[in-house]
């Protein structure tokens, strides 16, 4: 196999990888939007932050 053929094969692999990634993120974003539309009316779950003075010492 010539060096050019190996390079072309690698190029095809890279193109497949990039298109696959783009397709994955496209479908994921669509599903995320649909999920957001269906769940946006629900109340967000309760969240209790760490007490402020502890937050300060965490940043130091």
């Amino acid at each position, binding site marked *: 196999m010539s060096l050019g053929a190996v390079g072309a094969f690698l190029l095809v692999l890279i193109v497949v990888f990039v298109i*696959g990634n783009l*397709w*994955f993120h496209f*479908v994921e974003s669509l599903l995320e939007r649909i999920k957001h539309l269906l769940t946006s009316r629900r109340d967000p*779950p*309760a*969240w*209790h*932050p*760490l*007490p402020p003075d*502890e*937050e300060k010492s*965490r940043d130091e």
Partner: protein
Amino acid sequence: MGFFSKFFKGPEVDMEKSNANAKKMRLLFNQVVENGDSYRLIFGYTEDVARFNYGFVHGSKTKIGNLIVGWNESMQTIVVVPMVPDLSGCGDPTYYRRSEILKAYRNKYPTDAFIIYPDKKGYIGINAYDWLEDESLYVYVSQEEELAAFTDFFMNQFATK
């Protein structure tokens, strides 16, 4: 000799960081659980693995949820509080009282998670280890002794089979 022994020793736990995180876990837990000091704590996590097939792209996604797991031997109760790896906050607690749950056991495969079925509709699988180094996914805490105590409690007092 000194160089190689250091090289092959592997990663070491930063106990200062671990103790600070354990303290924060306690603060968060006590904030949402009544009489929180009567519970012993460990860090645990859940794993949600979902398969996807988007045409020519398919694989699996894993979501990890961090938990503060508290247990009280005299009350035969396990409390699970969801939180985030940076310990900036936590959610509402869920109580699993032995007298109320459907079943509890320790899994063998694929992981040795602690499984609790509160009813027939769902279950929680709690994974826990002595120490997990990846701070972006897990809480940095060393808990060898506490994990051994929790395992003993779960296997000998809480498990139903």
